[in-house]
């Protein structure tokens, strides 16, 4: 078990800043996902926690102990690169024993740990089976087991599901999450895939260009994105951004987009140039609305349609129920759910506080 603190961590490779003066406080026993596009600094952050990279400046604490300059094996963390790398010529028990023999544990201790992990993962019947004869699901469990037997203070995982096909990845997510609920070992997991992040995480840390933009619960990043990058990165189809016609002042309950008046949560911040953000699933097609546009594209998903509507202000995507899809070329009205609308300052891309967003606090401290 471990609490991990990063203080003003900075890492540059030549003139490329991978991680910029980042502070982050990760709570003990949580499953934390570092999420962002390639080049955002998530893997570099993980590698510094593991000791595979050293920062240019800053400090890393593990349970209050400064480990910034320690070598990887002096940190008692387990780095999992690929959950599927098993030794094909060994049986399950030998695969599990392998990391423990390397640590020169006593035979009795090895036996005890293998028994514990066998119980957790329900792999008793296959202990003597060769890896090659196992189903995919059993292999996953064995691979996980090999990380667990070491009983590290924290698991560090770098895109461990990246090479699996989509169907398998979902199953693996469920398995990983269940396992975490049993073990409660602090886990830092790196991915660019928001579905993985949302399915696994207690806390999601969204990174972009070396900065932590938000460190929050999955619900927090979805409902209260602190800036336009997070808002656009989380959720598919992505949040719609629509420029406002006029400035926003504190206390407004209505804004103007493309000559239509839209009801919004009472504003607290103001901005001369603001953007309205609303998710496609929070807009209804409604002919009585004065916000109108022309349907330019429809996509069928079975459970629903995604309709793209060209309005005066911007192209807007709407999730429409499966029974009723307008045809391309039709003129439709758009009715966003007022309480789900967020506003951003166009220049800084930061969230403008409103009556609804004010109630929310980010789950983790960061800087």
């Amino acid at each position: 078990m471990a609490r991990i603190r990063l203080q003003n961590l900075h890492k540059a490779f030549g003139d490329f800043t991978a991680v910029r003066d980042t502070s982050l406080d990760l709570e003990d026993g949580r499953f934390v996902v570092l999420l962002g596009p390639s080049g955002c600094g998530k893997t570099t952050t993980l590698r510094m926690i593991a000791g595979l990279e050293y920062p240019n400046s800053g400090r890393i604490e593990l349970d209050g102990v400064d480990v910034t300059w320690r070598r990887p094996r002096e940190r008692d963390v387990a780095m999992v690169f690929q959950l599927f790398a098993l030794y094909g010529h060994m049986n399950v028990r030998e695969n599990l024993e392998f990391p423990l023999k390397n640590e020169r544990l006593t035979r009795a201790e090895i036996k005890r740990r293998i028994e514990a992990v066998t119980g957790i993962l329900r792999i008793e019947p296959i202990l003597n089976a060769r890896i090659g004869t196992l189903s995919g699901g059993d292999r996953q469990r064995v691979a996980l087991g090999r990380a667990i037997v070491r009983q590290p203070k924290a698991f560090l995982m770098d895109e461990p599901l990246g090479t699996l096909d989509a169907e398998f990845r979902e199953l693996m997510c469920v398995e990983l999450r269940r396992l975490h609920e049993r073990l409660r070992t602090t886990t830092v997991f790196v991915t660019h895939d928001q579905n993985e992040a949302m399915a696994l995480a207690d806390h999601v840390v969204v990174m972009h260009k070396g900065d932590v933009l938000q460190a929050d619960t999955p619900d927090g990043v979805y409902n209260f994105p602190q800036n336009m990058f997070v808002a656009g990165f989380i959720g598919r189809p992505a949040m719609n951004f629509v420029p406002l016609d006029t400035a926003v002042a504190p206390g407004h309950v209505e804004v103007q987009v493309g000559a239509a008046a839209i009801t919004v949560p009472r504003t607290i911040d103001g901005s001369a140039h603001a953007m309205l953000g609303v998710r496609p699933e929070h807009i209804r097609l409604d002919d009585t609305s004065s916000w109108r546009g022309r349907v330019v594209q429809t996509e069928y998903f079975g459970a629903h349609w995604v309709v793209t509507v060209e309005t005066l202000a911007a192209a807007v995507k709407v999730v429409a129920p499966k029974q009723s899809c307008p045809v391309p070329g039709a003129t439709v009205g758009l009715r966003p759910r007022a309480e789900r609308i967020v506003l951003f300052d166009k220049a800084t891309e930061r969230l403008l506080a409103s009556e609804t967003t004010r109630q929310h606090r980010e789950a983790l401290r960061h800087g």
Partner: protein
Amino acid sequence: MASLTLSALGKRFGAVRAVDNLDLQIADGEFFVLLGPSGAGKTTTLRLIAGLETPDAGQVAMDGVDVTAAHPAQRDCAFVFQQYSLYPHLTVYDNIAFPLRSPLRRTDEAAVKRKVDEIAALLHIEDKLGRKSTALSGGEMQRVAIGRALVREPRVFLMDEPLSSLDARLREELRVELRRIQRRLGATFVYVTHDQVEATTLADRVATLEAGRLLQVGAPQRVYTDPDSMRVAQRLGSPAINLVPSAWFDERLPRTAHWVGMRPEDVVFNDPAGVRCRVLEHSLVKHLLVAEREGGELRATVMLDHPLAAGTEISLGFPARQRLYFDSEGRRLRSAAGAREALTSEAV
């Protein structure tokens, strides 16, 4: 562009029937999707069309002409694979131009340039033409691979999971693009995927395959709303359809109904007349509620503002109009009313 007819097509590998007595008609200019899990025979079907495999039985015809014995080159299909195979030492321009410069085709350089520029504009990679293919991102590489197929103007495009190695955002982007390009060119696409989202969003018609056999073929909306079998109902739709035992219902059901199917988006949340169950998990982000009753899982799409805690008791309604009934073999039971409705929805 060409139409395709597969008649009683069969291919075995040892004891495995990879493709089993397959009949398909694919129209000229159609975006046709083969959907199924791995091992369904999708890729083998593509390879039989291309002439990369020889069938044990049956016939492949293009534009009504039997090509079963014809060489791949004579059939003139363009193949795009999941793993983009580009020439790493060549620029994007030369990669796209490569098929045009083949000794079989011999195109003069002015014509090559015209064609490459046209394709690059179509795929939005005009500014990447001078780059080495290794300097591209995954999505750009796959665009180039598609570009290399498009430049040839083949009779049929065969695509084997071309988007599955890309991340979610790029997949979404290229999906829209592929559809647009196919419409623009009026090309015949045969597209293999295990991803039901690609199937419903891209296809004019989708064929669901399993273990080498065709389960159902039709327009995505038709197959989704009116599946012939439980297997097809489960293959299309995410989150997956609920299938619950008919014993859960007190009212009268069709006599041989063994299973009742209900799409998660049709489940009514907090229906007093519904079945009692316990929340397993609830994702506000995915709008998905997973609940448990008698060891079975139920999925419901719900738009709530606050998460429901695991263990909460709720009731979920299965409105009669939206139910799909299946017999003990998983075959669909269609009532007279159901069949009428299916016909109306098809007319729409």
